[in-house]
């Protein structure tokens, strides 16, 4: 018997321990926020937090999460108002939306360990998450915004008129 929590609730698992966490979440718990995109940790659509750190649930066997805390997009915030989610809305990031739960979970994990990532650090941390709609420029901007709102740091401290107004 493997025990762990999902979004704060205790769960027990007695099936095939090689089952990836993704399929347990989707097929058993009906938590459909984490998506199936590749099955080999290439695209990041399945990203969840394990003890607060972004992980690819499609290749993580349930046997490895004994005693761990799993958080899915459904548990990221009470009302969909995590700073990263708010930044995603502010920048109107999504197109089809399929990859965005994974992108948001990856970004939230990045900002929890590195609250003020550089442009290059954002690229490095986010390049494991594919978006076929090509929303990368907006994802990058949204992470910068979320970073500012989470740290109360208005960045480099000058007003950049090119960043004002409608999303470019």
């Amino acid at each position, binding site marked *: 018997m493997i025990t762990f929590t999902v979004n704060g609730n205790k769960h027990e698992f007695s099936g*095939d321990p090689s*089952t*990836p966490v993704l*399929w347990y979440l*989707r*097929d*058993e718990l*009906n*938590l*459909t*926020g*984490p*998506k*199936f*995109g*590749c*099955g*080999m940790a*290439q*695209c990041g*659509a399945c990203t969840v937090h394990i003890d607060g750190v972004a992980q690819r649930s499609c290749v993580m066997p349930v046997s490895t999460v004994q005693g761990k805390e799993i958080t*899915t*997009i*459904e548990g990221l915030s009470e009302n*969909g108002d995590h700073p990263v*989610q708010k930044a*995603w*809305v502010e920048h*109107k990031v*999504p*197109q*089809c*939306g*399929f*990859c*965005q*739960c994974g992108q*948001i979970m990856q970004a939230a994990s990045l900002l929890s360990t590195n609250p003020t990532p550089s*442009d290059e650090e*954002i*690229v*490095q941390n*986010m*390049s*494991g*998450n*594919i*978006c*076929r*709609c*090509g*929303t*990368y*420029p*907006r*994802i*990058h901007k949204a992470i910068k915004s979320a970073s500012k709102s989470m740290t109360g740091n208005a960045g480099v401290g000058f007003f950049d008129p090119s960043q004002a107004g*409608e*999303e*470019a």
Partner: protein
Amino acid sequence: MSENTYFDMNRRSFLKSTAAAGALVLGTYFIGSAPRAMAGVLAKPAENAKRANLFIALRPDGMVEVTCHRSEMGQQIRTAIAQIVADEMEASWEKVIVIQGKGDPKYGDQNTDGSRSIRFNMQRLREMGASVRYMMQHAAAKRWGVEPNTCVAAQHVVTHTSGKTLAYKDLIDDALTITPPEADKLKLKDRKEWRYINTGMAHIDLQDIVTGKATFAADVREPKALVAIIERPPVVGGKVKSFNAEKAKAVKGVVDVIEMPAPKGAPQFQPKGGIAIIANNTWAAWQGRKALEVTWDDGANGDYNSESFKAQLLNTVNAPQALVREKGDALSVLEEASDKLVADYYVPHLAQAPMEPPCATAMYYKDRVDVWAATQNPQADMETVGAMVGMDKEKINVHVTMLGGAFGRKSKPDFSAEAAYLSMKTGKPIRVQWTREDDIQHGFYHAVSAQHVEAALDENGKIDAYLHRTAFSPIASTFQEGANAPFSFELDLGFTDNPILTPNMKLERGEAPAKARIGWMRSVSNIFHAFAVQSFINEAAHKAGKDSKEYLLEVIGPDRILDVTEQKAEYNNYWGDKSVYPLDTGRLRNVIEKVSDMAGWGREMPKGRGLGIAAHRSFLTYVATVVEVEVSAAGDLNVIKSWVAIDAGTVVNTDTVKNQTQGGSVYGITTAISDGITFDKGRVQQSNFHNYRVPRMSDSPLDVEVEIVESDAPPAGVGEPATPVYAPALCNAIFAACGKRIRQLPIGNQLKA
């Protein structure tokens, strides 16, 4: 059907049947056991809603249900349709609910491809909205016994000049007794009165998406559903020789192993055949498939090798072929030319690879089939599923979920037919889940193509004669066995409608058989046609020693409407009437000038950096793109920034247009950097994102600046036109940066050499 009959017929018939039609089907089976996720997208029409017309229903609580009959795949069509209807009917935005329309011919065309949802529907949606506004205004006037022109309907309220008001919700029954005028007599809002149209308002599904509540095909939950994963023949036309059902069934959770029927004749949208593993959950089905030990008879396509096919295509375009368009005598001029440029271009097969692999759930009953699918064309699902299970298409209920990307893949509903067939065989609801390997290896691929272009340059570097031959495996082959000639439809995408001005032009098309299933992919044959034409013009500019932007303008020539009739050619113009949507070279020149200003064209570039430009009209929209790249001494490519000017005529949502244009640009990078889909022994050699590369953030510019040309021209396409220009603009920038010309895609190691 005339423009007006849909209007009255629909309205009247719906008044009679009120909410009976369509209102019940979504809810009863799945809601209840479903997680919250169901609510967001598969909104259930209220049973007490009253239909004003085909697209609009009014609820006693004042909410307005707008039907979206097109599939949502990221282009925000659900929002755009609601914007149009709500604006014209003067609805308060917060009182608008979007209902996703099932597959149903009553809506007219639902095939969400060709970047045509807005241009095919904007006018009638405006009319339907305006008719409801009319009904509300006249209902209030009747109630008050006043002249209608003393009443104004705005934001869910009708106000009389005296100041008294009536809410829309209190006028519903009265309004349904008012017959609005014929469409041509209906007063639509003036452009300057628009509240929602031509704004960048946020899309309606945004919050559901960022919280994981949006319902994609695999998110449709049915507690009794079994999961099927199918092992399909690796070669098109291949058949199962043997397999080990017992080994597969020995996997815990596997409940059945079912052989799929082999397709007959041309592929069409038929499932490929193979062996289905049915299990209690996805993982068990997947493990069961691994245990199958299946062997195959490959059939006639088992010899397909894309490398030798490439040589065949290049040979084809280097010999005379069938004439498509001719002006003057290009061949004689070319023969006598002292200054000539000759180039061959090649673009491989590509896979659409939407983030959501194909998926559908189906439940077979003896008198109907219910299907939930990520489909671009639910009416095609009705036909394909009907044929698969031997039932009339009217009995196939197709519910359209959100599509996790599509790019043309999901207008081929083979996956829905698989689910329906397996439900028929098992008597249980079945969810067919494609893996990424299935998606990459069993797709309908973008056609592989070769292009040969020649030009004679006069003493000023002007193109005096132009010859272009194209050859590619046609989409027709998917519908007709043995078809090997490009359709005119495919040639019309950036080939026959080439707007360059030259006294002598010859366009020819070669034949190519199809050894794989060929299908359309975002912007279709514009991809290779624009790549060849826009790369070639850039090569000619360098040969002539001219600035590539000025040369591009010069080649396009003075502002005019393209007329190829004197050249005995015809092009379909994307189903657009040429009197309404002429190919206007002035608009093409305008986006080139605009994007050049945006990018600071002509500025001094540091060593290793370059700007590239390309422009192309597709789907009736004019796009010009500038890409800035850096190529290191070691040959590493860095795409720094891109600028795009787009003239799509009237636009509904400015932010969506920008997002689509940014995304369509990034999608265009795939053409250049992807490994492409290659075949050996008839089998696709790529399998997942590790060997079928698609752009990641590290490949993408972090800034794609977009400007929309303000225009009151009729609306044109948006989803596709940014894609075909990108690869040539990128490769032209690479040449500017390092002097290496890319004529064959993918770029691969060409910069390293």
